[in-house]
């Protein structure tokens, strides 16, 4: 059913205004500001970028500088950083799927009383700051940290494992931090699934595993996609976790942005990095949205 052409009563039209206003004020305008900075030149002073348009003796001079973008695509470091960020985000998302799906499934299928307790367990880490939790991971993963002590005490290893300041530590941190974002939307999908569909599958001769693969899994697809988006998108631009847990050679866009912004004070460059990242993320998001709308229309 399409609502677009039907009559919207004034009150309903009014109800749509606040979210639009919010998006314009807090997303569109700031983003346009960033786009503007990305096209400016660098200068020392306040602000540290040149104005885009200048009125000089009645002549409006518009100066657009593509320096940042040109550098982005010519300097291999940036390209490699983007690719690496996408790779890290993809692997993190995959790991969240593999670990998160069974957890979400178990929570959704447990008794209602237990279910709330388990959900609380998933949400509980949010009650402490992310920074604290990442520091805690440093304590666990360090060469003389909790994990190595435990493994050595158990006699499983002789020399400490080098995890801290490696890519593995970054993955551990990312999966740990973003797992709830995968579990929660998937859980919401799984819990409202019509259990009679599973019964119908059993009734028609499907073993439990077959019923899961041919009914539960395809029906939870949108939950998986939603969870994957919520993990993938913020992971691409993640700064804190790679900075604290990763080594010097862990290339992530977030860190590059930080360097350009605070170390090099190159605002236009940092802005260009940001704009390209947003574009990179908007494409999959738009595809997902398109897919969702199409599915809704099918109904």
């Amino acid at each position, binding site marked *: 059913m399409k609502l677009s052409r039907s009559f919207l009563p004034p009150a309903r039209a009014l109800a749509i205004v606040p979210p639009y206003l919010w998006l314009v004020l807090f997303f569109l305008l700031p983003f346009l500001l960033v786009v503007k900075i990305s096209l400016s030149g660098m200068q020392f002073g306040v602000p540290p970028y040149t104005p885009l348009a200048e009125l000089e003796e009645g002549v409006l001079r518009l100066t657009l500088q593509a320096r940042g973008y040109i550098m982005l695509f010519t300097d291999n470091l940036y390209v490699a950083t983007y690719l690496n960020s996408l790779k890290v985000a993809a692997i993190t998302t995959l790991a969240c799927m593999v670990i998160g799906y069974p957890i979400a499934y178990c929570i959704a299928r447990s008794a209602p009383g237990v279910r709330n307790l388990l959900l609380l367990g998933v949400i509980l880490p949010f009650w402490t700051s992310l920074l604290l939790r990442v520091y805690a991971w440093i304590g666990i993963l360090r060469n003389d940290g909790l994990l190595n002590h435990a493994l050595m005490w158990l006699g499983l290893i002789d020399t400490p494992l080098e995890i801290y300041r490696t890519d593995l530590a970054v993955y551990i941190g990312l999966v740990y931090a973003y797992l709830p974002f995968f579990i929660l939307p998937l859980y919401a999908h799984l819990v409202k699934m019509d259990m009679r569909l599973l019964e119908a599958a059993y009734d*028609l001769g499907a073993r439990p595993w077959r019923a899961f693969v041919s*009914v539960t899994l395809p029906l939870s697809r949108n939950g998986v996609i939603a969870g994957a988006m919520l993990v993938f998108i913020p992971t691409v631009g993640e700064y804190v976790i790679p900075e604290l847990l990763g080594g010097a050679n862990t290339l992530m866009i977030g860190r590059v942005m930080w360097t350009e912004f605070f170390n090099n004070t190159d605002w236009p460059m940092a802005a260009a990095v940001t704009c390209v990242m947003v574009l990179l993320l908007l494409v999959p998001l738009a595809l997902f949205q398109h897919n969702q709308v199409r599915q809704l229309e099918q109904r």
Partner: protein
Amino acid sequence: MLHEGLPIMSVQSEAERFGASFPPHSEDFVQIIDVAKQFGDTAAVRQVNLAIQRNELFALLGSSGCGKSTLLRMLAGFESVTSGRIVLDGNDITDVPPHRRPVNMMFQSYALFPHMSVEKNVAFGLKQEGVAANEIQDRVFAALELVQMAQFARRRPNQLSGGQQQRVALARSLVKRPKLLLLDEPLSALDKQIRQKTQIELVRILEQVGVTCIMVTHDQEEAMTMADRMAVMSDGLIVQCGAPRDVYEYPNSRFVASFIGSTNMFEGIIVEDEPDHISVQTSDLPQPLFISHGVSEPLGMQVAASIRPERMTVSLTRPPATVNWARGEVVHVAYLGSHALYQVRLETGKVLEASVSSMMLTRDDAASMGDEVFVSWAPDSAIVLRD
């Protein structure tokens, strides 16, 4: 136990046809033996015995919470059996998981897989069996032909109407040729108009396929239209079992008499017990009820007499008989097309319901609202109920 209240002359023949809550014989096709289901402290089903014959269409009838759905789910294997046994075609299936039972179910809301086409939905069961691809295609097409849905094979369930979904669900549950087909409120999701047409259509298809079928319904009309035999359930027990007509004409308890159809119930005491008749003294009527068919109950016993509205005659003139009539005033007339339902308030305050056929309504001496009328009935129309 079961047949009290039945007229003596028909006890022998009826008893043979009923045979319900007696333990099933080993040659019966479906045997439900002492089956009970306990959910925590509450007993959903308490000691049910049923025997169902091959190719029979059997209905479990009852209001919600009577245990009929739980019984059906135990037959499908979705619920374990607390005690008792279920035997299908000589095999004990009590502990067989649902995916290995030769039993298929048509769900109340159809439970069609929304992400599969009609064709894939119907093929699902055959695929699990490992049937060869070309045979699957033939059988799916045949099943869809049977329910006249072949032209919709490529559609998704959400693109079909309720009636069409119901047909697909039927095809899906028949395509595996189950030994036992379970129908859970098969038509409750349909509009009333299409429902009646579908009931007869459904029976036709089931007879054509030749399948043993147990259906659950809360709609007595549905059960009576479709079923060969039915069992009335209440509070986890089977109260009465028999052919729809027998259950309607010879209810064995106050509960069944008022649950199946509507009835006029008279509470009273037996004051006369002769070989050819009894009399029941009731405060609802100015004179005792004279009941001609033999019911051997002790004098002074508290019983109920049930007389169906269609057994009542409404007339403006006083009937010639000395017994079995009462004077009253018409307080309501509900015109229902084929017949009209009169409500007549007697001098005792009791309100009787009488059904008058539309043909009678057109006559000059038809009673209307506010008229003083006489309600009368034949001596053999009352059923005496002890329970």
